């Protein structure tokens, strides 16, 4: 990381830390919490689709599994919130293993269809397994998290939990991407046959990607559960999976910063468009189409173009040739 990038990164972090001190609107802070939560789920999808090239439309299902798991543990078993969130994260990751394993032989459209099927099944289970989920009536009475003597009861306080979780998830994704396992995932995305001829076991890496995507979405779901404190199966539909996918594509699928930016932008956009009432969805749709057409590599690609960075991929120290002056003649 160059000094300039480091400075920019530090400034961004300070700005994010100060947000609840400057903004006092509960409404804005609530949207900010949701944006951060979505960003975590989209980052998980970014590992699976952006790094490994495996298209999943089940991300909302894992989001729901994490939300209900953490909700159930706190409401019915009386567990404290933070351990419940951790267990919900691991549990969602294991379900991701359960989805990834049978789907290994599928790719492209077939994989997408299988994951849609999984998403629909999950939502049906959430609706009909009433003894656990309370069905369509939804799960109520979910407690807020407690850290020592402090209860995170306001949106401003909760914001810091979301921000810390997002920071950890970003760090993990960044470390993976910039080291050997991330290169292996990208090799599978670029050319699976060549990857296996290079000694990469596609099975291993794809499964880990499914597990990470599931765990990220599960953590996001758990964070949502203890923020809105009410769970209803409608929130974990196929539509929500599509929204996560759109956030990733708009942001730039291979890019970590892009995934986060896409989630934040598309969470705030409907709120900004709210005065348009029912026609907002048309404007929202048109805006998404325009972004996909005019920024084919997403916000991350746009950012690269503006800052004249080569290669077009985020966190790419390799893009600097050893002999910059001679690089053209190669």
């Amino acid at each position, binding site marked *: 990381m160059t000094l300039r990038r480091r400075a920019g990164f530090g400034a961004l972090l300070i700005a994010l830390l100060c947000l609840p001190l400057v903004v006092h609107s509960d409404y804005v802070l609530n949207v900010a919490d949701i944006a951060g939560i979505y960003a975590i789920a989209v980052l998980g999808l970014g590992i699976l689709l952006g790094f490994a090239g495996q298209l999943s439309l089940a991300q909302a299902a894992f989001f729901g599994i994490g939300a209900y798991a953490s909700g159930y543990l706190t409401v019915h078993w009386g567990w404290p919130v933070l351990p419940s969130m951790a267990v919900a994260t691991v549990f969602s990751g294991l379900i991701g293993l359960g989805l990834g394993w049978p789907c290994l032989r599928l790719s492209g459209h077939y994989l997408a269809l299988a994951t849609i099927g999984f998403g629909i099944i999950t939502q049906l289970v959430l609706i009909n397994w009433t003894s656990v989920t309370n069905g369509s009536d939804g799960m109520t009475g979910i407690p807020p998290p407690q850290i020592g003597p402090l209860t995170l009861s306001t949106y401003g306080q909760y914001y810091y939990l979301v921000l810390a979780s997002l920071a950890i998830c970003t*760090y993990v994704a960044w470390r993976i991407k910039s*080291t050997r396992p991330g290169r292996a995932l990208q090799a599978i995305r670029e050319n699976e046959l060549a990857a296996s001829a290079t000694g990469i076991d596609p099975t291993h890496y794809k499964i880990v990607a499914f597990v990470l995507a599931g765990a990220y979405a599960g953590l996001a779901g758990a964070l949502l559960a203890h923020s809105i404190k009410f769970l209803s199966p409608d929130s974990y539909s196929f539509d929500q999976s599509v929204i996560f996918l759109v956030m990733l594509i708009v942001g730039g699928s291979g890019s970590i910063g892009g995934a986060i930016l896409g989630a934040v932008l598309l969470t705030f956009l409907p709120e900004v468009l709210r005065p348009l009432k029912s026609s907002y969805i048309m404007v929202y749709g048109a805006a998404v189409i325009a972004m996909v057409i005019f920024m084919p590599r997403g916000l991350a690609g746009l950012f690269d173009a503006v800052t004249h960075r080569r290669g077009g991929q985020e966190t790419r120290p390799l893009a600097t040739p*050893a002999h910059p002056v001679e690089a053209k003649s*190669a």
Partner: protein
Amino acid sequence: MNAANEIAARETGFLQVRGLLKRFGGITAVSGLDMTVRGGDIHGLIGPNGSGKTTTLNIISGLYRADGGSISFDGSELVRRPAHAIAQLGVGRTFQNIRLFAGLSVLENVMIGRHVRTHVGFVSALFPGGATAREERETREYARELLQFVGLERAAGSVARSLPYGDQRRVEIARALASEPRLLLLDEPAAGMNPTETDTLVELLRRIRDRGATLLLIEHDMNLVMTVCERITVLNFGQHIAEGTAAEIARNPDVITAYLGGAIDAA
């Protein structure tokens, strides 16, 4: 390898293919192929189009599963091993229709080739210091050295798909070399190259052999095969019809009838 082992390897064959069989539907692509490649040789695999050369290479590297026969590589049986396990045993390859990680940089392509010689996993990746940092640095340095070896050090930062065709072939060779293969399979490495590039390739193939690798190459450029290969196996209709030195092959009446059609001057 000590002298006795080396002699043994030369006699029994470093790579021994016996009775190899592969069918696609009703078509038999490889029917009972026998082939012996000696350690340290540059070995040519030639034959008319559709004679089963690429299929054979794909079976050796584990991309196809053989329907019968055996492949012994330095004592290990390769048939029924998955492709990545065969690569881990020390078999590298390039492809007839180049298969790079096209959207990644040239350096990243070669670093990925180092996969089997490195160890950082999902957990150790999270700890940026110590062993992880050292391995990353070593991988990068090794990849840079290889790019220098194939003459592409200045293209390290370029996106692989933006390179000219001949350079892409050299990236593929560097990627394969990054795993330090003991056997390197090359599928038509000179295809689409001009005479100058081909000359550079011949010299590169010899330097690769001098690094200690055994080479098995499919090639249509007979001039290149005759120049560079110590031994040659000729296929026709999925079967071995001759094996020997370039001079022996060029004189072999079966080969002349079946493949060369008598048109070649052994030169």
